[in-house]
């Protein structure tokens, strides 16, 4: 399908990582058709100066490619009428660049709440901020429906987001999210930064995925500059990524159970998560491993003592984690809450290219480590964790499986770590703009990164797409028909990032 679409165009030579094909409006619409037919997955869509770009993945051939469309006129045909998942991405691009997507059914601003000092902050000429009309939530009609507004300030200490429930008694008829409260302007901050400064910013897009973000940024920069980090660095990066995954999945499994008021699981998982973070601290010098993955390699080598700390951790997890899995399985009152709650249908998961755990719990066999393999996973593949039920229980089980797979993978990887340097200073100095793109599997799902470097190796444009962009809309679908009181449970089983989404 990708081949046929791009038969008449040739890829741009400046773009590395995977091909980027400049297309015209007709091909852009043809892409929309292919998305509608489900032959392609939309992995991301973002604006640029005078252009829009989207990343497409073809599940049948496991090929990935970008398409870019000239938008110097300020108008581009919208993909949203063909493919609903494009809607929020286009609304965000419209907010940031002032692009007009013709045919976009939903024209409400998304990230811009009318509180920014400027409008269209990433456009060539931004306008002073304007007060926007009040946000109109979508209507639901019927007898005795009532609305429940929740957030953006919540009773607990969590990130801000507004949820507008329309309920019939306790049953949710419609949920609409309003996000963008933690917009920090990271993409604008990235513009003009040096690679090192940008790497630090990229690591802070979403703190719990700092390894994934550092990795995707580093890989995109390396692709753009044609640099190859030493083999040992590649393995150490993956070790960090798997440790991050284990720590976060442990936290999630506990937190999901805690939202069903089963706090014993939360306490026990919390202990294991803490052990993982401490092992990370003693192995790499930072509990979350922030700023350790840098373009060119890694900033800290793993000493034998660090290897021992991680192996002690995996051994401990092997002993204790199965007991918790058994506890989860044998607690009927907990199963009663998770089984059959918040179902995401396989069709919807496929349409939205549901990243990570949510996709794999609904039968979407996609894991960036396997589907778009990168070193070292191409040489040491992992097993795909998969379920098809699509409920909260399935998402818990995918996490449990992934923890187990990652433990096994870590042990194998540490036994065969290659020797050698861990960092190669990237010396290439481009004479014109170069671009790179990468896809990395974080604990939430695939994180997409795109970098364009200009002369002097300054960032011209960097876009980091959090998996939450594609997960948040699915949460709206998952809760439909469930009861209001089950929303926290569904929400926690998705565990979408606000920070990564609002950027």
């Amino acid at each position, binding site marked *: 399908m990708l081949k046929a679409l791009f038969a008449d165009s040739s890829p741009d030579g400046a773009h590395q990582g995977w091909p980027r094909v400049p297309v015209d409006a007709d091909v852009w619409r043809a892409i929309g058709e292919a998305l509608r037919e489900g032959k392609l997955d939309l992995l991301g869509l973002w604006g640029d100066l005078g252009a829009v770009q989207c990343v497409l993945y073809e599940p049948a051939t496991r090929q990935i490619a970008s398409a870019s469309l000239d938008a110097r006129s300020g108008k581009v045909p919208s993909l949203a009428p063909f493919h609903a998942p494009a809607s929020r991405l286009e609304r965000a691009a419209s907010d940031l660049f002032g692009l007009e997507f013709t045919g976009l059914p939903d024209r409400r601003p998304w990230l811009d709440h009318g509180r920014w000092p400027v409008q269209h902050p990433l456009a060539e000429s931004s306008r002073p901020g304007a007060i926007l009309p009040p946000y109109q939530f979508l209507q639901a009609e019927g007898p005795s429906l009532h609305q429940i507004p*929740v957030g953006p300030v919540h009773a607990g200490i969590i990130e801000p987001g507004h949820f507008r429930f329309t309920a019939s008694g306790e049953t949710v008829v419609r949920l609409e999210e309003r996000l963008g409260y933690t917009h920090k302007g990271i993409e604008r901050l990235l513009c003009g930064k040096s690679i090192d400064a940008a790497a630090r910013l990229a690591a802070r897009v979403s703190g719990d995925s700092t390894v994934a973000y550092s990795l995707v940024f580093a890989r995109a920069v390396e692709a753009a500059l044609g640099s190859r980090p030493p083999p040992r660095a590649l393995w150490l990066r993956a070790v960090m990524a798997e440790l991050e995954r284990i720590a976060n999945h442990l936290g999630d499994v506990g937190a999901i159970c805690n939202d069903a008021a089963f706090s014993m699981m939360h306490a026990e998982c919390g202990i294991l998560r803490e052990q993982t973070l401490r092992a990370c601290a003693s192995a790499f010098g930072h509990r979350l491993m922030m700023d350790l993955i840098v373009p060119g390699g890694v900033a800290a080598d793993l000493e034998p003592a660090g290897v021992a700390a991680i192996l002690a951790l995996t051994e401990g997890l092997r002993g204790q984690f199965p007991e918790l899995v058994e506890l989860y399985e044998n*607690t009927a009152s907990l199963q009663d809450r998770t089984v059959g709650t918040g179902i995401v249908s396989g069709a919807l998961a496929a349409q939205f290219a549901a990243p990570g755990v949510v996709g794999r719990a609904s039968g979407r066999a996609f894991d960036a480590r396997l589907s778009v393999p990168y070193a070292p996973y191409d040489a040491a593949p992992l097993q795909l964790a998969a379920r098809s039920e699509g409920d909260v229980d399935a998402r818990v089980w995918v996490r449990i499986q992934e923890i187990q797979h990652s433990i096994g993978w870590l042990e194998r990887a540490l036994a065969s770590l290659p020797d050698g340097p861990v960092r190669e200073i990237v010396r290439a100095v481009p004479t014109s703009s170069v671009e790179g793109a990468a896809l990395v599997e974080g604990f939430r799902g695939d994180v997409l990164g795109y970098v364009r470097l200009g002369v002097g190796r300054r960032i011209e444009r960097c876009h980091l797409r959090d998996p939450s962009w594609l997960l948040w809309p699915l949460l709206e679908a998952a809760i439909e028909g469930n009861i209001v009181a089950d929303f*926290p449970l569904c929400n926690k089983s998705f565990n979408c990032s606000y920070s990564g989404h609002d950027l």
Partner: protein
Amino acid sequence: MSYSDWLIQLAQTALVLGTAPLLSGVTRKIRARLLRRQGASVLQPYRDLLKLIRKEAVVAGNASWLFRAAPYLIFATTWVAAALVPTFASGLPLGAVADIIVIVALLGTARFLLALAGLDVGTSFGGLGSSREMLFASLAEPAMLMAVFTLSLFAGSTQLSSISAYMLGPGAGVNISLALALVALIIVSIGENARIPVDNPATHLELTMIHEAMILEYSGRHLAVLEAAAAVKLLLYLSLIACVFTPWGTAVAGAGALAYAAGLLAWAVKLALLAFLLVLFETAIAKMRVFRVPEFLGIALMLGLLGTILLFVSKVSR
């Protein structure tokens, strides 16, 4: 009735209020230890109350007089109800003028006021909490009454002191109706005190709240009074179960200082034990889906009913 009886009654009334936060603190401490946490001091609820009383009470602009008055009324009714339950001594003056049905009625009044207060400000969470509370109350209250009827049929009286005395006497033994009433009473206690699996007193998730949702708009002294009322209510239910089903050691009015001291000790031990069992149960179970709670409370109602019917049948056939 002598003056000393009234003194003891007064002491007991003060005691339930004075020790209720301690009971909350103890349950939280036990829970923390079961979850492998250190936990806050058992005195923490007192500090929390003190902190809340000192804080400014923020009241919504559209709150009516009801919103301000409700906390005190709820507190007063709950406290009076708690004072009617024999703790360390039975046969006290107040118990003679008000029976267990009055206790149920007082608690019902408190609940009604709380639900009204939840609705008063017009926030969605208050309404959500009130509607859930009323849904559960429509089953919990009759269940409580059925259990009470079983007990009073047994003892031939609705006075708690008489029931307690009957239980100590030779007439009572292991009886199926009694067991059914006990289970019904335990289920009602769990539901009424917003414990897991019905409600989670420690949750921060607005959408799952029941009791907490109704008091979400309260702050400062209003919240302090409501928190104190909730603590007193837990003490009331545990004391009630202890008084009826484990009446041993309770002093009888006018028995003398030594008997009172022994009664006090017995009461403390019983309460600690019940609190431990409650927390143990809570730790081992997840919260129910909201729509399953009526089934759970329905069980209590059915058990209470069954207890009463069985009692009738056995009396008739005897």
